[in-house]
């Protein structure tokens, strides 16, 4: 038995804030529909239900961006939506390394090319 003196203080489900999980509809105090309101007062574009502030701290770019665009064109109940996103993440990391160290990328690329040529030559001698 717990020595905790507070044991059972929330034993009554009525004291638990998440019971029931889904409450009767009720707006939170002070909550208003500000989704359509820009800071500069301009109206949100026609048909644009979400302003540009929603999401995209890092806009998609490069090959990974194209993969992400392709992924988001596929509904998320398909596994390929997720697989493409995971692939895009790995490509993004490679792209970022190339951007940060282009010299290293050239050396790595040249090394890979030479390695491939050497392998092909070795296989050709068999």
């Amino acid at each position, binding site marked *: 038995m717990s020595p905790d003196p507070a044991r059972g203080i929330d034993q009554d489900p009525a004291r638990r804030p998440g019971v029931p999980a889904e409450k009767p509809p009720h707006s939170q105090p*002070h909550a208003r529909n500000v989704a359509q309101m820009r800071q500069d007062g301009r109206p949100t574009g026609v048909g644009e239900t979400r302003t540009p502030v929603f*999401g995209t701290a890092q806009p998609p770019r490069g090959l990974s961006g194209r993969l992400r665009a392709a992924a988001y064109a596929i509904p998320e109940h398909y596994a390929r939506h997720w697989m493409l996103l*995971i692939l895009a993440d790995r490509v993004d990391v490679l792209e970022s390394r190339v951007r940060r160290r282009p010299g290293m990328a050239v050396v790595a690329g040249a090394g890979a090319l030479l390695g491939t040529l050497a392998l092909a030559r070795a296989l050709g001698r068999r």
Partner: protein
Amino acid sequence: MKALAYQGPKHVEIVTKPDPRIEHAGDAIVRVTRAAICGSDLHLYHGLVPDTRVGHTFGHEVTGVVQEVGRAVTTLRPGDRVVVPFNISCGSCFYCERGLTANCDRTNPNSQIVGGVYGYSHLTGGYDGGQAEYLRVPFADSGPFKIPDDMDDESVLFLSDILPTGYQAAEMGEIKPNETVAVFGCGPVGLFAAKSAWLMGAGRVIAIDSVDYRLQFARRFAEVETVDYAQVDDVVAHLREMTDGRGPDVCIDAVGLEASGSLMHRALGVTMLQAGAANVLQWAIGAVRKAGNVSIIGVYGPPWNLIPIGVAMNKGLTLRGAQCSVRRYMPHLLEHIRAGRIDARAIISHRLPLDDAPKGYHMFANKQDDCIKCVLLPNGGLA
């Protein structure tokens, strides 16, 4: 400003980014005083969450001081101290009106399955997080909770996520008086789930992990019985033996997709044949008594996991899982903290300046230096 930025799996750096600005009438800018590293940040850190982009700033457990507010914000003023829920919620959509702020329909244009979250990939909306000097807080009237003058930031920091998350985990178990509750995982969420189980009247709480210092801490902090699953042949059978052969009434999965303990699940997770390792969920379903409850608060990624759903059906289990809708728990849990019933700050094992965040991630991920919880101090303060 200085901010943490993801560079690839197991690689984060501190970089300089433009200061966030008010982009929307409902925004606020918060100067971050405390930003914790969450266990779920490790899923991002390990590159396991889809659409985690290079340059992304993590961090969804934040306290700070309001620096600036948008013209539509009515409840906050510059200078207010706030604790920010990890969910970004509009407060007025179908789900927010029903208290389900984790399911907000307006804050995540990228997915239908989850609402917006700070610093948690573009899968949850693509918002930069709070492991930075400043944070932009959308829908500032709906999310942030003002810190009462008699409370310090660290005492309430974990109202942002892990305390309500642990509490909700216990709540989803629908614990009845004197029931036996098994909590898998002695990380921060597991610790708070165990504490909450006592508050809800559990008669016995058993915590399961394999990291010795965490098991020791759980015994001390949450006064639980512990099981080191690595020291028993079969954790499911062991839990049954401890409970008259029936199994615990409630099992809580507070681990999620990075579970250890099963070679098969690890191998399938690494090869992406399932989204991480789901063996804790398998254990929970196996161990819980027939007609018992399994509460899933550990994070699992899409698209699928191997779990014994037929066992769950035949045993007549109730499975419940949800991201925590943090906002509705904050006032209630604040009172528990204020009354001394939960000493949330007691789990902080490390306080680090923002510059040392990469070290903090490495330490937390590798369970070094008896790390329970790392808190970053982006704008200085107690070190």
